[in-house]
Structure formats: structure tokens, C-alpha cells
């Protein structure tokens, strides 16, 4: 028998899509059933009360969670988000309901041994409810009490070899696409770069020293499956320098209809026979391709590596072999100054495992220095770039301006010249001037 009536939430149990309400109810029942044998460290009816408070929100049309208090684990400034219910007497099981962010493994690959241990820990010391995963990428432990935070952290680090993720004004948990693990298009090893930078920048991740949040995301190719270009302060997007690899026999197979285009992604409708002119050549944004006499030609110098032709003919075309990444900076969601897309800062950098990614750190660290020096409280990198200008960013990183940095040159001539760029400097002699021009 459910602790709280939830007539509104109950209506979300029907329909085909997996119902989070059904899952919560099954968890509430499982906890009640095991209450005798398990020495649950937070209230047994935590999930019942969560259902109850959510039902109340469905009635009220308003949330019933309060601001986070300052809770955390000793020595860290992030990884735990304090959460308290504003109806604690009605729902004592969720009166204290803190979130913990657990740094996910690259590519979100798991083995069941690890997952079961995570489940056992969270069943025992928390609500048994998770997010798989949060928007930034972490495993989210949803709801526990303050005394359990250190216990969970101890068990994670001692028994599972597992650390917390980031929250607050620090490096947020970096995340990556599936990359070379199972994708033919990844131009560099996203998971290794993500892992290495996460490990090397643990201090920045756990101890807030930045003006605001800072996100790294790693996409293996310009398809951007983890949306790095839209939501990471620094986006590392795989690309290549040399020529698209062509298998002419496979091109013919596409043209001849033996292989379905786009990896068969359009199989749900009859789009007619594949037309290479219409579907590939004419959709190339730079018009750098032609198909003549059964042969596909690409003028690679004019190609901007958008991926369309490769997406459409994955068996015939592959990215080049000289892989690396472009670095775009300053993306963010709209708060406060409007949404920003990442802006291209480094067109190409080798992703060099052997050097410990020194070439990439040489870009990251001057940006952090500049942002920590110049950034205002709660100012994202992208907002600082808008306030101070792209030139200041270039100077901070020591990169020369190039046409790749802009979609078009400036519309106004209001150029801030540097004094040393103008012969003779800014100091002029008014008396000398007056010798030429009478008052």
C-alpha cells in the first residue's frame, strides 16, 4: 500500500515509454520489502516521500525544493549539491535529500560488477535512485542525508576506486563521445584525452577557484554527438588535415543501389533510388565534389570537413589519417547574456598521447589564467570574450589572428590600434602641429 496517494503521477504509468513513476514505485516497494534485512542508512520510505512531494508539485505547479545548503566532503568544494524539501514535516524521508555527482567512466562503458557495487552502495546509504546520467555526464546519486556524505565518499574511494565529479565554480566533470571505441569517424582518442585531462586537473575539478563553471567536452568528429560546440567552454572537436579516404568500388556500390545510404538510417520510408548528385554532390556546402565516369573526386583543399558525404556513404568515405582536433571556446547556455556557440580558437592541434597532451594544455592553462585574472564573479569564458574582445583572448593564448577565426571580417572600422603599431606612437607635439596649422 503506497504511503501517499499519487493520482496525477499514476497517469504517467500508462503509455509505452518507460515510466519513471513505475520505476520509483518498484523501488519504494523493494525498499519496504527489504526493510527487515537491510539496515538502511537513510529512511526506508525515502522513495515514497519523493513520490509524495512530486505529486504535490503536480498539484501546485511549483517545485518544493529549497536552495542547497553548504554541504560536501572534507577538502572538496564540489561534487555534492545540498538539497532540502520545503515541506519536511509532510515528507520527512526527503527532508534532507542531497545529490552526489560521481565522475562517469569514458564513453559511459560499464561492467556489471562495478555497476552492482555502485547499486549496493547507493541502496544502502542513499535513496536508491540515480540519474544515468546527469546532463554534464556524471552518474547522479539522487538523495541522501548529510551524515552519509563522508561515508559514501570513503566507500567510493576505498572500495571502488572512484571519485566525485565537479559542481560549483570549478572544472565540471569532462565528458566525451564514444569515439574510437566504436565509431569509425573519431579523429582522435576522445576517451583518453578526456581521462588524462580529468586526472591531471583534479585540483581544478574539486576545489573551486574559477569565476564560474568551466566545461570540457570531447567530440571525435564534427558531427558533435556530445554537443561540445554548443555547451562546453572548451570544445575539442576531432578533424583531419589530409584527404578524405575514398573507396571507389564502394562509391559505385552506393550508386548502384547495392548499399543503402547513410548506414540505412532512412529505411523507414521509400525515398526512391539513391541519387549521388542530389544527395551528396549538390549538398556539399563547398561544392568541392564531382562524380564523373563512375569516379568520385574531392577537391580536398576546398573541403571544410562538414561530414555530410561521409555520413551518407560511410562504407566509401572515411576521414583522413592525419587526425587531430579543433578547439572552440566560449559556448554556453543563455543565462545570462544569451546563448553562445563555441568560437574557433585553434583550427588544428595534434592530439598527442606521447607528450601527455602538452600542446593542448598549452592552450588550456593561459585561458584559465586570463579568465581568473579578468573574469567577474559568475562570468563564463564566453561572456568574458564578448566583454573584452576576441583579440584579448588571442593575446592571452599567444595565437596570431587568422581568417579562420571569423565568419567574416568586422563591419565597422573602429579598430583599437595599439600604440606600437602606429609609427611615432600616440605622443604628438601640439607646438609642432601649430607650426603647420595656425590657431
Amino acid at each position, binding site marked *: 500500500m503506497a504511503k501517499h496517494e499519487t493520482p496525477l503521477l499514476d497517469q*504517467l504509468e500508462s503509455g509505452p515509454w518507460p515510466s519513471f513513476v513505475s520505476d520509483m514505485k518498484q523501488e519504494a516497494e523493494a525498499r519496504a520489502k527489504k526493510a527487515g534485512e537491510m539496515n538502511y542508512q537513510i529512511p526506508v520510505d525515502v*522513495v515514497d516521500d519523493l513520490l509524495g512531494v512530486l505529486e504535490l*508539485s503536480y498539484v501546485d505547479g511549483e517545485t518544493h525544493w529549497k536552495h542547497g545548503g553548504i554541504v560536501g566532503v572534507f577538502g572538496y568544494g564540489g561534487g555534492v549539491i545540498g538539497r532540502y524539501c520545503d515541506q519536511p514535516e509532510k515528507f520527512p524521508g526527503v527532508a534532507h535529500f542531497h545529490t552526489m555527482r560521481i565522475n562517469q567512466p569514458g564513453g559511459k562503458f*560499464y561492467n556489471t560488477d562495478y555497476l552492482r557495487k*555502485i547499486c549496493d552502495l547507493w541502496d544502502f546509504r542513499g535513496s536508491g535512485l540515480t540519474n544515468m546520467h546527469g546532463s554534464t555526464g556524471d552518474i547522479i546519486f539522487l538523495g541522501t542525508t548529510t551524515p552519509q556524505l563522508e561515508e559514501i565518499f570513503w566507500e567510493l574511494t576505498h572500495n571502488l576506486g572512484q571519485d566525485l565529479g565537479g559542481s560549483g565554480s570549478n572544472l565540471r566533470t569532462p565528458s566525451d563521445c564514444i569515439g574510437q571505441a566504436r565509431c569509425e569517424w573519431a579523429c582522435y582518442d576522445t576517451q583518453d584525452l578526456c581521462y588524462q585531462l580529468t586526472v591531471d586537473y583534479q585540483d581544478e575539478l574539486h576545489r573551486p577557484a574559477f569565476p564560474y563553471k568551466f566545461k570540457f567536452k570531447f567530440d571525435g568528429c564534427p558531427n558533435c554527438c556530445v554537443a561540445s560546440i554548443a555547451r562546453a567552454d572548451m570544445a575539442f572537436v576531432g578533424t583531419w588535415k589530409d584527404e578524405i579516404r575514398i573507396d571507389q568500388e564502394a562509391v559505385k556500390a552506393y550508386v548502384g543501389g547495392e548499399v543503402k545510404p547513410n548506414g540505412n538510417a532512412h529505411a523507414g520510408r521509400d525515398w526512391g533510388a539513391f541519387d549521388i548528385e542530389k544527395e551528396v554532390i549538390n549538398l556539399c556546402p563547398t561544392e568541392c565534389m564531382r562524380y564523373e565516369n563512375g569516379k568520385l573526386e574531392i577537391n580536398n583543399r576546398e573541403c571544410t570537413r562538414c561530414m555530410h558525404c561521409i555520413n551518407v556513404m560511410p562504407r566509401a568515405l572515411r576521414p583522413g589519417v592525419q587526425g587531430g582536433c579543433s578547439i572552440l571556446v566560449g559556448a554556453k547556455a543563455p*543565462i545570462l547574456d544569451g546563448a553562445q556557440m563555441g568560437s574557433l580558437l585553434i583550427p588544428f592541434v595534434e592530439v598527442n598521447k606521447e607528450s601527455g597532451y602538452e600542446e593542448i594544455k598549452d592552450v588550456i592553462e593561459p585561458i584559465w589564467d586570463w579568465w581568473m585574472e579578468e573574469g567577474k564573479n559568475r562570468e563564463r569564458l564566453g561572456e568574458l570574450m564578448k566583454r573584452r574582445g576576441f583579440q584579448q583572448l588571442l593575446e592571452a593564448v599567444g595565437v596570431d589572428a587568422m581568417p579562420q577565426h571569423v565568419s567574416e571580417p568586422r563591419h565597422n572600422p573602429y579598430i583599437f590600434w595599439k600604440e606600437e603599431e602606429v609609427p611615432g606612437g600616440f605622443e604628438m607635439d601640439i607646438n609642432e602641429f601649430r607650426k603647420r596649422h595656425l590657431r
Partner: protein
Amino acid sequence: MTFVSSGYDPEKPMENRITDIGPKKYDEFYPPVIAKNKGKWLYHEILEPGVLVHVSETGDEVYTVRVGGARLMSVSLIREICDIADKHCDGYVRWTTRNNIEFMIDSKDKVKPLIDDLESRKFDGGSYKFPVGGTGAGITNIVHTQGWLHCHTPATDASGPVKATMDVLFEDFKDMRMPSQLRVSLACCLNMCGAVHCSDIAMLGYHRKPPMVDHEYLDKMCEIPLAIAACPTAAIKPKKVEVGGKTLNSVEVNNSRCMYCGNCYTMCPCLPLMDKEGDGVVLMVGGKVSNSRTAPKFSKVAVAFLPNTAPRWPETTDAIKKIVEVYASDARKYERLGEWAERIGWERFFEKCELEFTHHLIDDFRDPAYYTWRQTTNFKF
């Protein structure tokens, strides 16, 4: 309940403390076929909705069965996923960026038993636990945020509207009839913890009333300068108020300047702004993050406000369904929703989707607004 110590001694927090170890290393969790073929994959193909094969230059193949899942997940359900992974996949499983679960196997004959197993599992309430789909030119899972379940600033719920929307779009999760992939996202407030600002269709929770001021407690609970500085439109200024015969330091909100972002509320709990009538959903369309063909695009506001009609948000799901159907019937192969809208023109988009265009949809926020007005005589009647 009796407290059980993990071994942590609160008297000596630094004793035997382990910190800064980071995540588990990715390759601890690779299935053998992934470990062996990493970086050697040649191509992939979608065999049917939800089923992919990747072929390696070694000749190896990996078959992936993708299933949808709610982002909110209990340990009971994760344990069930482990049971399935143990039974079919040698104990390996992964999640995607969009909250799907992927079961990988190394030969084709294992595919059907796995799918049959997954599709046979249902919750007591009747919904599928593991519906197979979410690939190719279809509609995959919705990335979303916490909503009323666990957040202090939401203007709508997250899990509920997502469930309601995916129920409506379910057939297209299991099909690939769209002109291109169609990505739906939800963020329950302007903070946009999900990247909804670049999605084909985005639901965004939005407040419409300026914050209330809890004068009596504000100076005790908040740093007034921080609350003032948090406002992007400079709508908040300091104010002395009389409460119960006492003069208190507080703030005043210039309502006409407020854009209801809730940023002040994040800095100061004495400025709440949630309200049943005020809060609801903004629908945005036409964003993308891929660089394919055209540059990544921001989503644009298509519907300024839809109410929070719990538990199933019918106004929102109806509008989404309408947009999806018009896009499916009108766009060209490969064309993303935003590319289609730009080709036919936004005036046609509103006409075809039977959406009302109101003054709310013309940008008036700072410099970028100008670049969205029409500076040409080229338009359609």
C-alpha cells in the same frame, strides 16, 4: 536504523583519506570486442531501428541494441540491466549521451534473443522497460534536466513532460521515416542544464512573473550586493523597507525590466518567482549541433508560452506532434528541421505548422536581436 561506519573517522578526517583519483579508467570497462578493435572500425550500418552493426578492419563485428530509458533510474532497474548484460553481453553495457542504454554483442545470432528479452520486460504499470529504437532518421530519447523532482528553480517538471512527449512520439522512436534525425530536449529553466538551445525541438521551462521579495528575511539570508549584481538587466536595486515597525535593508525589483531568469533567486532564496499560472513551457525549434552541411544553429522560439498542464502537458505534446508531422511531410531527405525552416522561410514555417506568430517571438534582448530582424525585401506573402 543503526549507523554503520564505512571506516571513516570523523575525528580524524585526513586519516587514510583518498582523494583526487578521478574516474575509473575507460578501458577497464571495454567489452573484449571493443578493446580489440578500438580505432580499427571501418563502417557501420543500422540493421533495423535500434540495432547497429559496426565492422572492423580485423573482420570483427559488434552488434549494438539500443534501448530507451528514463534518465531517472532506480538501483532495481540498473540491477535488471546488469542481469540482462550478464545473460547476453558477457557483463558489459553502456549508456549514450541521450540516456539510452546500449547492449553490445559480438555476433549476429545473439541479436534476436537479446531483443526478445528486452522487449518482453514491462513495468507493472504497463510501459516498456527497454524499448528498442532511437537510431537513424527517427526521434531518439529526450535529454533533460531534473524539474520538480529535485531542483529549486524549475519552471516546469522534466521527467513528466518527457514521458508524455515520448509516449506521443513513441512510434518514431521505433521508426526511421524522418527526413533526418530529430533531437528533442527539455530544460526546466533558463539555466538550461540540458543543451536545449541547439535542439531540433526544445521544451524550456520559463517563469513569467518577477520575483516576490521576502523583505522580512532578505537581509538575514542573502548578500544584497550579490543579489543585485546577479541581475542581467539591472532590475534590482537596494531599498529600505518598514516591516513591523522596523526599518530593514532589502531590495526592490523593477518589474518592467525583469526577464524572469531567476538568477537573483539562485543567489538569494528570498526572491522566489515560481508560480502556477506564471510558469510554463516555451517551445523552441530548429537548432542543431552537428556541423554537417550547415553550421550549428541555435533553436528559435516558436511558441512563447504553453501552460504546465500536469500530468501530461497536452498543449505541449500536441504542438510538438504537429511540428513533427509537418516537418516529416515537407522537408527533404537529410534536411534538419532548422535547415527546412530556413529553406521554406519562417513565415511559411508558422503557416504550415499553424502556429500563431506574436510579438513575443521578435527578439528584443540586446545586440543579437538586430541580426534576427529582416533586412531585405525578400519575403514571402
